[in-house]
């Protein structure tokens, strides 16, 4: 065991803090040619007290120690020796390699494939909505709490009604966020409007929080001319520039490396904003997950990677998805600070995202959040999940572990919400949704010309030819074509 570990963690922490302040922030920019990394834009302030409290002290110090070593040339190790050899026999036990100094051991031991215990998950509310005593959390204002709860209810009702609309054949497809309402709403509530969202597809709650109207949701699902996407994609593939919500695409995890690039741009602009990119448990198996996290870490980009671990990727249970302790442990593999949170606890999600955001922006680093939850609904309207999981499992999560009920209990107990408001809200939302659907259904589809625009900034000649030819065909065979698209 390397001798330096015997030094008290506080000593280590103070030493690193001093070195960091002197060498890496504000002062001289130390560019290490051999590592090719640079610190010019590490504008991170000292880790705030609040955040430091949330971090395992030894873990933080080890991570930062590795950081400090990474950016020093192996030739410059002499400067480090003064720190490392508080115990004099240290020099004998460490060896240089590109990437820094490592101590060595003659005892051959493999790091275990898993810890003795799983990483605990952070929660603030009991299952019944009571606040856990002496817990650490970011307080939410009454206004925000009421908005959060109302949005969670709205999301629930929206999901039920749109799902039913698909079953009635009025829209072609839908997928719900059932069971995950706290994740999208509470995470959105902890962010600012300037933070940029790169969703997977089960986070419409973020858009709802930011002010996307029920009509706007309905318009996209019906693909009418009011749809910002101009009717080009399947339902639920929302996108809204004015809400800083990038358009959803079906391929899984492709948004993760893009998030790193977007965050890098924010970094270049010194914006006090971050990117939040969502992914499911299944998506973390994709190569783009590895690419996204690695790039964000190396580029020191302010991204929050938010993983909704809901246990299922269509019919594939997490036991068939990975053999690690979920996703949270993967953060360390990339040098990314991570936390596991109870995704069905709105306050815990809110607190974790608040803290993550502060770290991401102030320290210009990515953060990984794994929110444990359960996908109560089927994967989508094309799925019947009773084919691969037990009905009583679904019912248990829907009833006993419901994030909406849990949060309601909390807001009600505090006196910020009442049964009467509940009834009023549910009736009102239901009515608005039914109206929005009626309006969306009656609204014209986009005109045929929108088939050909936006492939490029201007249509090239082959598209102009094809449009001309197509119009002639439509004129000759009008019955082949839907009548609700104006030619």
């Amino acid at each position: 065991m390397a001798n330096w570990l015997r030094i008290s963690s506080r000593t280590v922490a103070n030493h690193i803090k001093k070195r960091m302040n002197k060498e890496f922030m504000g002062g001289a920019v130390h560019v290490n040619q051999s590592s090719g990394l640079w610190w010019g834009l590490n504008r991170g302030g000292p880790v705030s007290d609040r955040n430091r409290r949330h971090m395992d002290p030894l873990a933080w110090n080890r991570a930062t120690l590795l950081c400090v070593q990474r950016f020093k040339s192996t030739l410059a190790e002499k400067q480090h020796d003064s720190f490392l050899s508080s115990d004099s026999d240290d020099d004998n036990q460490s060896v240089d390699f590109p990437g820094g100094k490592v101590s060595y051991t003659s005892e051959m031991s493999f790091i275990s494939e898993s810890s003795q215990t799983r990483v605990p998950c952070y929660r603030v509310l009991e299952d019944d909505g009571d606040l856990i005593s002496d817990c650490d959390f970011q307080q939410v204002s009454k206004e925000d709490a009421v908005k959060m709860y109302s949005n969670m209810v709205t999301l629930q009702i929206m999901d039920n009604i749109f799902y039913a609309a698909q079953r009635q054949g009025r829209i072609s497809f839908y997928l719900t966020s059932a069971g995950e309402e706290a994740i999208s709403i509470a995470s959105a509530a902890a962010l600012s409007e300037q933070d940029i969202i790169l969703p997977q597809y089960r986070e419409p709650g973020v858009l709802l929080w930011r002010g996307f109207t029920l009509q706007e949701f309905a318009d996209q699902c019906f693909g009418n001319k009011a749809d910002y996407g101009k009717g080009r994609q399947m339902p639920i593939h929302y996108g809204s520039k004015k809400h800083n919500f990038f358009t959803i695409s079906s391929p899984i995890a492709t948004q993760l490396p893009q998030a790193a690039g977007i965050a890098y741009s924010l970094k270049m602009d010194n914006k006090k904003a971050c990117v939040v990119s969502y992914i499911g448990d299944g998506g973390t198996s994709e190569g783009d997950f590895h690419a996204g996290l690695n790039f964000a870490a190396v580029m020191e980009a302010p991204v929050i990677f938010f993983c909704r671990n809901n246990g299922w990727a269509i019919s594939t249970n997490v036991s068939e998805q990975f053999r690690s302790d979920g996703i949270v442990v993967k953060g360390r593999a990339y040098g990314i600070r991570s936390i596991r949170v109870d995704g069905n606890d709105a306050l815990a999600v809110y607190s974790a995202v608040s803290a993550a955001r502060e770290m991401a922006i102030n320290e210009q680093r990515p953060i990984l959040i794994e929110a444990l939850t359960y996908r109560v609904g089927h994967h989508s309207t094309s799925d019947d999940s009773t084919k691969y999981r037990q009905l009583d499992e679904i019912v248990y999560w829907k009833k006993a572990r419901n994030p909406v009920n849990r949060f309601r209990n909390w807001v009600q107990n505090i006196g910020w919400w009442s049964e009467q408001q509940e009834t009023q809200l549910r009736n009102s939302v239901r009515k608005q949704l039914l109206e929005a659907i009626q309006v969306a259904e009656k609204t014209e589809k986009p005109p045929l010309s929108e088939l050909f625009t936006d492939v490029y900034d201007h249509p090239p000649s082959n598209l102009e030819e094809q449009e001309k030819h197509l119009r002639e065909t439509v004129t000759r065979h009008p019955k082949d074509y839907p009548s609700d698209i104006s030619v």
Partner: protein
Amino acid sequence: MGFRNIIGRRLGLGLVRRRKPFSTATCDGDGNGNAKSINLYSAINQALHIALETDNRAFVFGEDVSFGGVFRCTTGLADRFGKARVFNTPLCEQGIVGFGIGLAAMGNRAIAEIQFADYIYPAFDQIVNEAAKFRYRSGNQFNCGGLTIRAPYGAVGHGGHYHSQSPEAFFCHVPGIKVVIPRSPRQAKGLLLSCIRDPNPVVFFEPKWLYRLAVEEVPEHDYMLPLSEAEVIRQGSDITLVGWGAQLSVMEQACNEAEKDGISCELIDLKTLLPWDKETVEASVRKTGRVLISHEAPVTGGFGAEISASIVERCFLRLEAPVARVCGLDTPFPLVFEPFYMPTKNKILDAIKATVNY
């Protein structure tokens, strides 16, 4: 203190402007001003220097670009523009392109390098499913037009399977991106600057064989060459030859020899493969009545097939002979058998004669 201000001061600009106005005149570089004889990688290097100097939101990144790149195309950029704008990435093509899409989506000019076109495939999903559809699927709320992906392609004499590929055909089948291939240093500089400044994502394949071998007078100033405009680089009346990149010099040699036999060849450099300039090729075929296409990529499903089908559709009654294709074989690119695989001057010459004598 804003980072942009640091850049501004380093460049000696008092007030940092986002972009310096650049010439969009489509001069082909013959205009006034100094021209120096330089090779292809130097021309590309010049284009990159100009791109970064005229737009302080332009970035160059990829594997090994920081020290100058394995082909020296990015020499001097990191020193001049700093490590925030010119930097190495981890070894991960899907990450490079995904990251580039994100950067471009925020209005930056993201110039991504893929070290060899042979390694572009991990990024295929990001290119086809994301970059190409970014604008369309969002209803034009978002776009990644600032993305340019550069990759060396083509035979180099000893590259074998994985340092010689010509994958252009895969990308020509993707609506939403552009595919551009220069034939020479002067073309490369002007075309690359156009690609970088074009508001659509572009894949730019550079013929690696020519990085050192091709030397040409290249004007030192900032100039752009138009995309989607093919160029007749040799006038003729008996047969039209269509090609791109390094293959054109082989075709030109074939044309010279054919001329000795009294065959007058018209040679067209397509330059942009997607969207391609059908009008110029059609006009030439209407003149000659014969067409031959040549590319290094395997013949089956190669881009020559698209050109052939389009020409037959448009010029069927004018054609005096079947459309000829002289291309690579339908095999992985071989090492010791490279001379047999390649569409050589004599293969082309034989095909010219066969077509003319049909």
